[in-house]
């Protein structure tokens, strides 16, 4: 067990102490219980941790029996237990390792520092809704690592590797399916997605990614270089550090952490092959069109639909999966040269071929290379440190000078001559694009003309891809040798101990470069570009100048006499393009689509409702315009005057009405009740005019009353219409306007009992009943006929029920002129015996019959005929509209039911 160095005073304390015995500063973060538990064997220790302790006791011999379905603890045991397995571990190492490392890099870090591991620690201790499945997903990577470890002793030629892919391909779904199942069982996608959206920074995070060189957000960074993937992480940490530090359990932090873990996994797997494959739309779309936490989701369940079936993950995720599946299918068919498609294979955590370049690492130098790659990989988490909570300065910035000091380490140069055989080259070739590939390979593959460079530039962010391969690879050993410390500096003891116990190759490298071990070099080239002086490859200059022997001129034979020439070769202007974003239009489009989809998930309105509402508006507008059009056309055309008005015999009710009017003698009095609202006056006055004309002709006196509060005006309007229709406004014949009869049916009943007392005078001329030739005491007996014109079913029944019996007892006839809407209610009172209503006109049709009976000319060309003509046209149009529209709507509804059982139409079906 390693001692713990106090972050405050820098003195070492024995492992197990929680506080510094010198300055009492806290040594282990409060939430980082697992290490403490692993030491003390405390009870409530997560399974993975307990198994981890077991795993830590395993000897290396077990690794060959390590199966693909092994659990996280197993690979964790290999974490430090086996150098060859280390890359796999690094794939799974979350960024908080890097945070820890960052913390170690700054002994004078702020007190916030210990909180750095809090998030993942909390995540681990809270398996219910946090990344236990994520661990599994990352453990896939380790499993895949172990798969390739089985091939470790074989000297694999490139052609042989491609053959190995084929048996590997069928295995792809196996473990991930299991992972997906567990992942699905233990995580709730909507929840954490909600958590992400709840934090409201996902969309912004994505847009930010599109503006910054956050290539790793799109997976390109993962595929490309971990070196540069630090940049977005650092930026993000600045943007979200508050949430990041405060929130230790939200979906955002967990997923972000998990995303970076996966990102590193993707990197570790894909990087080796990056060199061999030109940029592919599919990988760009897959790795590049998604945040890495999403691509990690896809990796978690290749070919297993469960997650998006059960957890309701959004459609775009399905689409991405579909594209990914298509890519896998394509891989299964591609030729051996295409097989090592870094992007496609990098999507798949099961893809063990991504590390085939390590298969030949049994020789000493490959062991070194392996160690280099191991620790390069082990250093990745640092690159992904999103929050760098230790302090605001990213590690790479703090270790800048050390990085440059480390470049061109003797260990690297020492290896150069040993690279001689084709096999190594071919075996190593797939890795050449990656940042963690062995430098010996890097220097080889870095030579211009190899397919590596263009491919790499095409497949990684511009600031990577356009790098001179030499320079890119030159930096690798630095990471390699710095890795052990940077990764495990202040990791919890259980991890540091694991890493300290073994990994002999790493130990060799450590001995070779003790100083570099402490200096993790993690320098993005765009930063180099910002520091031209640093960007100069001084090491290259020194070495080259020392190695150069002048062979001509006065300085002939002298070594390093003219360094300037070399220096000039070494000095490069900073690449201005290094800060370009390598986002293709395709990626950007997909990003926009993704953002819009994610934002649209916040809008709760169901589409069906919108559709229903818009369709109802559409139907309403359509009905309106159809009716207007038809009515205007009918008015424009007009009825055919010569055509017969009506052929059918008049209904009995109309005949009875007509007969009762004919029976009126001149000078008799009629009570006319106009019980309709002004809105119905168009229809009612049109129907009333023939009646009033007839009454005027017969010299009958009319006393009018209305139960509508506008009654006085309704009566006056009818009077004016009559004068206008007869063309005699000065006609002495007038209706006695009693006006408004209050009290509804009760008032009506009171009026029927004592009319002269309820309404003593005319509202126009203040004429009393006596003035109008009526006997106030006689009441209703003054009238020989009562005519009720109404639009209301209630008014019909009230007159028939309240006044009708009184009238029957006094043998006064009751006639009605009714709007179409109340005509049906009159029928029962007309057909009863003895009839309460002695005749009625119900609607325009009956009015036409009546008009035809007593005024044939007016019936042929009067306003009633015109109204009826336009009305019948509009009626036919609206009936057709309702029938056709109803059929279409019903068909649409039935289709909608098939598509969407929970839709609105579904309720109708259910009721049916």
């Amino acid at each position, binding site marked *: 067990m390693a001692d713990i160095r106090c972050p405050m005073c820098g003195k070492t304390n024995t492992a197990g102490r929680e506080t510094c015995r010198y300055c009492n500063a806290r040594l282990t973060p409060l939430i980082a219980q697992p290490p403490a538990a692993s030491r003390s064997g405390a009870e409530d220790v997560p399974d993975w941790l307990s198994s981890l302790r077991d795993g830590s006791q395993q000897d290396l011999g077990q690794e060959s029996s390590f199966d693909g379905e092994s659990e996280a603890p197993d690979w964790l045991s290999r974490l430090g237990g086996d150098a060859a397995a280390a890359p796999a571990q690094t794939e799974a190492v979350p960024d908080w390792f890097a945070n820890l490392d960052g913390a170690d890099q700054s002994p004078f870090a702020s007190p916030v520092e210990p909180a750095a591991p809090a998030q993942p620690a909390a995540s681990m201790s809270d398996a219910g809704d946090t990344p236990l499945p994520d661990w599994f997903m990352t453990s896939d990577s380790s499993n895949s690592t172990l798969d390739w470890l089985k091939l470790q002793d074989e000297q694999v030629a490139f052609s042989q590797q491609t053959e190995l892919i084929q048996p590997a391909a069928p295995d792809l779904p196996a473990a991930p399916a299991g992972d997906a199942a567990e992942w699905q069982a233990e995580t709730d996608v909507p929840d954490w997605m909600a958590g992400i959206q709840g934090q409201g920074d996902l969309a912004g995070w994505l847009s930010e990614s599109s503006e910054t060189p956050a290539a790793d957000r799109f997976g390109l960074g993962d595929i490309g270089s971990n070196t540069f993937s630090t940049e977005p992480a650092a930026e993000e940490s600045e943007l979200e550090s508050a949430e990041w530090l405060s929130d230790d359990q939200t979906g955002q932090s967990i997923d972000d952490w998990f995303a970076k873990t996966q990102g590193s996994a993707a990197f570790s797997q894909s990087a080796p092959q990056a060199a061999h494959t030109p940029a592919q739309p599919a990988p760009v779309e897959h790795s590049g069109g998604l945040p890495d936490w999403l691509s990690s989701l896809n990796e978690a369940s290749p070919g297993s639909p469960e997650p998006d079936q059960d957890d309701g993950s959004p459609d775009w995720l399905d689409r991405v999966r579909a594209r990914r599946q298509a890519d896998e299918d394509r891989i299964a068919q591609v030729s051996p040269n295409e097989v090592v498609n870094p992007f496609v294979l990098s999507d798949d955590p099961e893809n063990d071929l991504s590390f085939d370049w390590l298969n030949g690492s049994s020789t000493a130098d490959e062991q070194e290379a392996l160690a280099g790659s191991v620790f390069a990989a082990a250093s990745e988490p640092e690159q992904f440190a999103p929050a760098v909570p230790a302090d605001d300065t990213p590690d790479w910035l703090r270790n800048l000078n050390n990085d440059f000091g480390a470049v061109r380490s003797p260990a690297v140069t020492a290896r150069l001559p040993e690279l001689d055989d084709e096999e190594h080259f071919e075996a190593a070739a797939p890795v050449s694009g990656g940042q963690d590939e062995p430098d010996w390979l890097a220097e080889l593959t870095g030579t211009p003309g190899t397919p590596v460079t263009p491919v790499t530039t095409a497949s990684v962010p511009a600031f990577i891809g356009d790098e001179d391969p030499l320079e890119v690879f030159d930096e690798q050993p630095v990471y390699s040798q710095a890795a052990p410390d940077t990764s495990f500096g202040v990791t919890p003891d259980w991890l540091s101990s694991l890493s300290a116990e073994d990994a002999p190759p790493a130990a060799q490298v450590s001995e070779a470069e003790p100083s570099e071990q402490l200096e993790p070099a993690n320098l993005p080239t765009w930063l180099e570009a910002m520091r031209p002086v640093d960007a100069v490859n001084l090491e290259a200059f020194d070495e080259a100048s020392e190695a150069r022997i002048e062979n001509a001129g006065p300085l002939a034979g002298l070594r390093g006499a003219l360094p300037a020439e070399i220096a000039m070769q070494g000095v490069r202007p900073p690449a201005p393009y290094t800060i370009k974003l390598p986002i293709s239009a395709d990626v950007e489009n997909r990003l926009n689509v993704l953002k819009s989809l994610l934002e649209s998930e916040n809008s709760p309105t169901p589409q069906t409702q919108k559709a229903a509402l818009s369709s109802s*508006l559409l139907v*309403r*507008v359509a009905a*309106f315009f159809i*009716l207007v059009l038809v*009515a*205007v056309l009918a*008015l424009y055309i007009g009825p055919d005057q010569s055509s017969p008005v009506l052929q059918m015999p008049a209904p*009995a009710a109309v005949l009875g009405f007509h007969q009762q009017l004919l029976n009126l003698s001149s000078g008799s009095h009629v009570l006319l009740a106009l019980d309709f609202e002004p*809105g*119905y006056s*168009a*229809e009612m006055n049109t129907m009333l005019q023939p009646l009033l004309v007839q009454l005027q002709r017969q010299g009958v006196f009319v006393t009018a009353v209305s139960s509508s*509060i506008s009654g*006085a*005006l309704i009566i006056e309007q009818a009077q004016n219409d009559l004068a206008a229709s007869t063309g005699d406004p000065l006609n002495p014949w007038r209706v006695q306007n009693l*006006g*408004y009869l*209050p009290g509804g*049916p*009760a008032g009506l*009943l009171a009026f029927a009992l004592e009319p002269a007392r*309820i*309404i*003593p*005078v005319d*509202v126009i001329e*203040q004429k009393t009943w006596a003035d109008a030739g009526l006997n106030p005491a006689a009441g209703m007996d003054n009238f020989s006929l009562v005519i009720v014109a109404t*639009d209301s*079913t209630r008014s019909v*029944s*009230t007159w*028939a*029920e*309240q006044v*009708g*019996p009184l009238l029957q007892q006094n043998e006064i006839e009751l006639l009605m002129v009714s*709007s*179409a*809407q*109340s*005509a*049906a*209610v009159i029928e*029962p*009172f007309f*057909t*009863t*015996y003895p*009839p*309460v209503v002695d005749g009625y006109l119900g*609607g*325009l049709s009956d009015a036409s019959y009546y008009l035809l009976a007593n005024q044939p000319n007016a019936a042929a060309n009067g306003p009633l005929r*015109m*109204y009826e003509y*336009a*009305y019948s046209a*509009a*009626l036919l149009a*609206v009936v057709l509209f309702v029938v056709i529209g109803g059929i279409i709507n019903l068909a649409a509804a039935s289709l909608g039911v098939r598509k969407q059982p929970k839709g609105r139409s579904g309720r109708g079906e259910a009721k049916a």
Partner: protein
Amino acid sequence: MNSSSLFDLIGLVVGFVLTLMVFSYVFGDNFLFRFATYTFIGAAAGYATAVVLRTLIWQRYLIPLIQNPGENFAITAPGFVLGIWLLLKASPRLSRLANMPMALLVGVAAGTVIGGALLGTLFPQANATMNALNISTRNSLQLSNSGLDLIVWMINGLFVVFGSVTTLAYFQFGGKAPAGQSSALHGIILRMAQIGKGFIAVALGVLFAGVFGAALMAFVDRVTFSWNAIWQLIGLFFPLT
């Protein structure tokens, strides 16, 4: 142009514009529709208030009371007292003090409701339904007595009786549900209710046609009014020689 025709012309324009404003609701609630309807509500309320104050209270109650107090006092004076008392309802704080006049109104309404429902609806309608098969009713309507007509009339009469009875049965509210059956209606009552519901559907369909027809007539009237208004205005500003 004399003043009355000018007023009519202005009125024509106002009516035409208000019509278009109301029609704008077809596209959804909007300012124009609100403007027209609020104007209408205010005008209707204003006219109603004027009618109550001027026609009812002044002309029909106060003037007779002043002219002939002895004859009208018994009805008008208590009515005025109760009416003014009722005005306290306009004040939220004093509202509860005016419950007694409301109690009078409700009591009178209840008596009217019972009497009207019993004598005005229930008995006449039951009597009319009984007459559906009454041959003397048929004779009173002077219908032909040919054999086929008589059979048709009889069938229709049975329909009316059966339909009225089953419709009335449809409204049955309660009963004792048999074991294992949730609905309180069962057996013959359930069957009758189902048939009655069919008659109700047909009756409401016919009534709906009446409502629709009346509304459609109003639509035609508005289109006619607008059509005439447009031509009148065109003729006014672009006189056709």
